């Protein structure tokens, strides 16, 4: 039984780690900042969440689980907001999109500068 | 690892010192920040590096685990970190004032108090 817990913990953590690595590779490889954000903000959230769950499972006690839960909730609240904010600032500051990106609404090219 | 981190400490000191030797106000403040990091690491490291659990006493126990890390240097560094924070943030604000007064980032223009 212990072994099952241990292996599932390792599997969860391993999957999470892999996702984070993927995100990192994506951040390195993606052509513009928006796509990097895309990759970073979610792969990492899920990845970190999985690792946290894995660790909680591995530790196998309730304080750890509570803490891990808090951490996951936290991540889920903050990461998307952060990414959104960053995307917004980048767009407003006129950080260029990659050439392949279609900009459907033309007005987005002149982001609202007035605050 | 001890030697590696000792070298890291030296590198941080080098960067801090170097930044202080430049002409830029911005670099000055970054240098102070790095120096503070460097000194903290030096203190932490000198006391003896261990790869061990934190000095926390389990509920019901009367002492931390036998292999727990030395708590005193941690307390010292914690104190030093906070002090460093206080000093550096005040210095940062001062730098900002300075930059506004000078309308420049160039420290070489700041010679009036000496000559």
């Amino acid at each position, binding site marked *: 039984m212990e072994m099952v817990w241990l292996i599932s913990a390792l599997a969860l953590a391993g999957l999470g780690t892999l996702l984070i690595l993927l995100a990192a590779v994506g951040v390195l490889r993606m052509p513009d900042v928006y796509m990097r954000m895309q990759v970073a903000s979610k792969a990492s959230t899920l990845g970190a969440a999985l690792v946290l769950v894995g660790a909680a499972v591995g530790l196998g006690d309730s304080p750890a689980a509570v803490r891990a839960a808090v951490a996951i909730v936290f991540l889920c609240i903050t990461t998307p907001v952060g990414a959104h904010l960053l995307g917004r600032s980048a767009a407003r500051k006129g950080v260029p999109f990659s050439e392949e990106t279609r900009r459907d609404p033309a007005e987005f090219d002149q982001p609202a500068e007035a605050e | 690892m001890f030697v590696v981190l000792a070298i890291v400490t030296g590198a941080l000191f080098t960067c801090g010192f170097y930044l202080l030797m430049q002409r830029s106000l911005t670099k000055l403040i970054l240098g102070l920040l790095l*120096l503070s990091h*460097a000194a903290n690491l030096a*203190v*932490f490291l000198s006391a003896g590096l261990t790869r061990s659990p934190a000095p926390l006493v389990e509920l019901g126990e009367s002492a931390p685990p036998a292999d727990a890390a030395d708590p005193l240097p941690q307390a*010292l560094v914690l104190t*030093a970190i906070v002090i460093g924070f206080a000093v550096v943030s005040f210095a940062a604000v001062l730098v900002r004032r300075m930059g506004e*007064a000078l309308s420049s980032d160039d420290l070489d223009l*700041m010679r009036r*108090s000496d000559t």
Partner: protein
Amino acid sequence: MLLPILPIVIPMFAAAAAMLAWRSVAWQRGVAVAGMGGLLASALALLFTVDREGFVLVQVGSWPAPFGITLVADRFSAIMVTLAAVMGFLVCLFSLHEANRRDVHRGFFALLLVLLSGVSGAFLTGDLFNLYVWFEVLLISSFVLLSLGGGRLQLEGAMKYVALNLVGSMLFLTGTGVLYGVAHTLNMADLHGAMQEVQRQNPTLALALAAVFATAFSLKAAVFPLFFWLPASYHVPSSGVCAVFAAMLTKVGVYALVRTFTVVFPEAAAGPVMTAVLIAAAVTMVSGVLGAVTQYEMKRILAWHSVSQVGYIVAGVGLLASPNEDVRTLGLAATIVFLVHHGTIKPALFLVAGLINRREGTTELKPIGGLAGAAPWLAALFLLSALSLAGLPPSSGFWAKFAVLKALVVAQEWWVLAAALAAGLLTLMSMMKIWNEAFWKNRPEKAEDYAASEARPIPKSFAAPLVVLVILVTLIGLWPQPLLGYADRAAEQLLDPDAYVEAVGVPRDTFTTGATMEAPLAKEGVE
């Protein structure tokens, strides 16, 4: 049991009270005077108690040494605390006039109180890391006080002050960390024994540590070639603040130098380092005074003289290099006398500058003049102070200089002696420059635009602290024996670290590797 904590806590409480009521100028002034008064009273009580009993201790938190932080008042620290308290009190009174509403709103009195609290803490603590903390307290409060004026000059001075002092602090912190890593204790009395053991195991390491601390403290004390922060910053704040700085800042560095090199480091490690310090001290004397003679603004001149005077003060410390016990005693006694002398006379001179500024609207020497006739009392106060600074008899300065020279002669340090003599003459010259320009020279017909066109009168109560100070200095000059005798006793006490260790009551006698702290120590603790 109570006394050593009071000089730290009283101003701290007062500072907190001042922060609480920071909108009320009157309240802050009242709290400041009360706090400084309490500090002065406690410091005097401490002084007399210590002189009677030798050591007065507090084990903070009832934790026994070396586990808790021990506050140790010996004669040296008691006189330094008293000096700080006297200056704090007088400058506080002076600042009731000098600090305007804007400064008070910005926390002037709270900062002054914190500064004094930090200084007292540094003088009284018996713990190396705690010393670092108090250093930082006084560093940041002085830093803020420096920049309080908010003008470009103040900002520049503060910038250089903080950058260089922070480098010093970081060296100090690093040294403390390394020292802890070696000795695994921070109590200075405990470190005394520990360092003996380190000296036995790896003497070069003890020497290296001594060099680090000497560098850090020399920077704080403004010794050549680490003094740059001082001439860049000492002259920029208001005169009252200048006075406190001149009384305290470098002194704390010197204090730390003396404390660590008498208690912590073994003689074998201290000796070679102190030789270097002695040479640096000689250069400092001359370099500082050379800087002074080039200046034409009173506070800058005084700032440079502070450097030079630090040279004299540290020269006495440098004599710790001597193998001769008598020389060491003479040197430290001279240092103590000089510390007290300079800690009173330099503030007096800065207060004179403050009064001149009040009257003339500037402390630049060129656009002012004629004060000998126009303000004869001010002239008399300046002259007495200036002659004392130059070490002319019969003044506190003479006795201080005499003590240093005597120690140097007995130590046969002829070059340092020559430097001291030359610097003395140049100091006289520089003081007389101020006298010539501000007091004797006629007031220039066309006052430059930044000097006040009309001299403003100086209220009597504004000058009162200065008068008290000058009377104090003159009394020391005319009747120096109480101070000299006290300094002798303090120096003898300093040179007997075993007594210090015994007083602190560090109860272990072995530091060898592998030895653990057996009962009763580890198990018992309090009660």
